[in-house]
């Protein structure tokens, strides 16, 4: 049986009209298609990206600078835009700090320790990626809102979470939670525990091992995760929308400002929306550049 099947295969190979040397030579890389195919693929890919990303983004830029630079500068002087930008950056930075500290902690816990519920924890961390941010927002209201579990107790203590900055931070933390963890875990897993054990046998305590061994090992992955988180946190809209009162100058982040201004009537409001959107975009581009610079370093590690 085996014999016949082998023979069948070889005879089929022999019938193949292509020159066998080109196909079989293991040393040479197979040519990546004819020039025509290559050009068609290129045009398709470039066209796809242009139509989906570059074109809409381009129109934002076009609309922002439709009437020259002066209206843009006027928008930038709008105190509501300024405070929205400040709040947005504040919320993002605090969220990233929280996510970095806990992200590194959780990653070390998951990689280095075996405990009941470890796989569950590992799975739950990914939840914010698959859950719609709006659900996160509503869930937060259920827990911390005036009718929620902790709401009444918190209100009686004079602490307001929902419709205030704490809720914005909570929502942003949850949404960006997996980003640091997912970058750090593979690097920690690849590094293994032996370097840590070697450091231990050389007399290093837990803190010294973290600072001298673990941190340098994960630094590029961590930097990458932090930048990703920062980008995600600044751009977060859905969860923040639900838990924020979106009061201008108080609980309005930059993304909410874009939304609210755009829905307002009036040329200046629209101009404000475009200017704010343009700001968000500039930051995004900056992050993409940083990420592109970090990526190769991480891979060579």
């Amino acid at each position, binding site marked *: 049986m085996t014999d016949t099947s082998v023979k069948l295969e070889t005879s089929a190979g022999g019938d193949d009209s292509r020159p066998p040397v080109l196909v079989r030579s293991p040393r040479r890389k197979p040519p990546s298609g004819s020039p025509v195919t290559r050009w068609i693929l290129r045009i398709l890919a470039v066209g796809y990206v242009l139509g989906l990303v570059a074109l809409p983004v381009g129109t934002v830029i076009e609309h922002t600078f439709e009437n020259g630079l002066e209206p843009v500068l006027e928008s930038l002087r709008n105190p509501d835009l300024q405070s929205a930008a400040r709040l947005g950056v504040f919320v993002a930075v605090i969220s990233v700090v929280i996510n970095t500290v806990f992200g590194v902690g959780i990653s070390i816990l998951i990689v280095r320790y075996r405990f009941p519920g470890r796989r569950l924890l590992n799975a739950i961390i990914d939840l914010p990626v698959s859950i719609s941010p709006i659900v996160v927002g509503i869930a937060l209201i259920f827990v911390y809102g005036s009718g929620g579990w902790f709401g009444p107790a918190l209100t009686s203590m004079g602490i307001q979470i929902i419709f205030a900055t704490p809720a914005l931070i909570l929502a942003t933390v949850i949404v960006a939670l997996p980003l640091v963890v997912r970058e750090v875990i593979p690097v920690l897993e690849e*590094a293994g525990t*032996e*370097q840590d*054990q*070697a*450091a*231990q*046998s*050389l*007399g*290093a*305590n837990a803190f*010294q091992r973290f600072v*001298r*061994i673990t941190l*340098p*090992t994960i630094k590029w992955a961590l930097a990458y995760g932090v930048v990703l988180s920062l980008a995600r946190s600044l751009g977060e809209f859905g969860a923040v929308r639900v838990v924020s009162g979106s009061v201008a100058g108080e609980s309005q982040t930059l993304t909410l400002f874009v939304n609210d201004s755009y829905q307002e009537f009036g040329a200046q409001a629209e101009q404000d929306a475009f200017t704010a959107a343009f700001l968000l975009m500039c930051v995004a581009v900056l992050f993409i550049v940083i990420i592109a610079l970090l990526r190769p370093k991480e891979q060579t590690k």
Partner: protein
Amino acid sequence: MSIAVTGINKRFGDFVALSDVDLEVPTGRLTALLGPSGGGKSTLLRIIAGLEFPDTGTVEIEGVHATWLPPQKRSVGFVFQHYAAFKHLSVYRNVAFGLEIRKKPKAEIRKRVMELLELVHLEQFADRLPSQLSGGQRQRMALARALAVQPEVLLLDEPFGALDAQVRKELRDWLRNLHDEMHVTTIFVTHDQEEALEVSDEIVVINGGKIEQTGSPDDLYDKPANDFVMKFLGPVTTLDGRLVRPHDIEVLRAAESDAVGATVTKLTRVGFEVRAELRTAGGRSGEVSEPWVQLTRSQAEALALEPGREVWLRTSSAPQTLAVS
């Protein structure tokens, strides 16, 4: 006694890694923990290092009760099979690590690290990263790193296991020489009996979580306590119902009272040695056995051995044999 291990038990779930192990390692000796994979030798080493903790039992290092001390509080240097080099640090910084942790003055660190790098022949590689070194060089760096803090005990877990045969042999000799110079109490784990026999002062054979036998390489080879040790330390074959080393069988052209008749079935030449496979006609035990005999080329030629030839076999004078259990 440098290290005294008493009544150690260790389980991983249902798997019994060590069962009631007692071991004493004298100061300044080079001791091999020898045994098959999964036999518990690495676990024992890691318990001595403090990288694992026993379920029951005690560990004493230089008279200090160390069972529950974390590794950083024991005066123990550990060398891993896969080097465990600090990848982000230069060779120099790797070796300096333990001294930096101990906050030694910079000048003293420099002096000690350079001495050690010279000792392991890596002085010209001080500024390289571990990724720029070969496996053998990385392991020598790891050794220098472990020795830098002047541990009372040096523990090596399959230190040459990841290296190719040539480098392994070089490092083996080099470790022996290093030990003769430094006299630091050393325990190394290996599953390679040749390595253990060649390098160590004392061998501890571990199998199935228990110590089978402890003794000098000669003792273990010549007076194995049981057939496991006999089989693990060198080649064995059966003749007339007994375990015997194939180089301890004498081949005779003529019948003798204590010899068993046999027919040569196959001859294989491996370099300088000749392996003769035979089939006995059934000796005193009446059992047919198929022993093989290790001969030199000249012995085989003198006996004019060839397949089909009738010869007589007996165990040569004072050999070690064991009844087949």
